[in-house]
């Protein structure tokens, strides 16, 4: 069993819909949680970064962490065709800058005009 599980998709939604993405994990030591967006032929781009449990909002993006359930989510409101990409969750047990990140397999999202 992988340490971090993520549905590979593809997840297809109409423009303007809410995109809901999630990851589950098994290592209770994870404290730092990140969401990256990766366009084709590009490197991962950081979207959201949270520490421990709780919610964080940034524009159209909301990240949620439920450590008791070992479950994290990313919501994208008012989705646009430009949001079509692969979304990767990543986690670290200690400071995210200086430690190994463990990634989910990524969910491919397609937002249709």
């Amino acid at each position, binding site marked *: 069993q992988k340490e971090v599980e993520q549905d590979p998709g593809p997840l297809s939604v109409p423009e303007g819909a809410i995109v809901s993405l999630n990851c589950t994990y098994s290592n209770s030591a994870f404290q730092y949680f990140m969401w990256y967006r990766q366009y084709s032929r590009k490197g991962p781009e950081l979207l959201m970064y949270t520490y421990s449990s709780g919610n964080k909002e940034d524009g159209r993006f909301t990240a949620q962490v439920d450590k008791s359930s070992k479950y994290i989510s990313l919501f994208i409101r008012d989705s646009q065709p430009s949001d079509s990409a692969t979304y990767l969750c990543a986690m670290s047990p200690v*400071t*995210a800058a200086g430690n190994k*990140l463990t990634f989910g*397999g990524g969910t491919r999202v397609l937002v249709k005009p």
Partner: protein
Amino acid sequence: SAVISQKPSRDICQRGTSLTIQCQVDSQVTMMFWYRQQPGQSLTLIATANQGSEATYESGFVIDKFPISRPNLTFSTLTVSNMSPEDSSIYLCSVGSSGDQPQHFGDGTRLSIL
């Protein structure tokens, strides 16, 4: 965030040869990492590039296959040695600048082995 440049962006190589990938950052960073992203899969950490000392490798990765250098706080190289088709992957450099800030990635080197 730091601007990270990787060279080459892509290459096609013959089996048995070696390729060195460069990662240049526009500012000094504390931590530099090398990840591999195999086709259709997620990112796996190869090693942490330590400035002035030997790199720290993850389980399943060895120095003879993936020698790494980090001569200063803005530059690192990863060499993929004695390549086989199984080494066909995207190799990504990431950097971390301070304790609570997340890592940022370069655009990667797309490597194909014939």
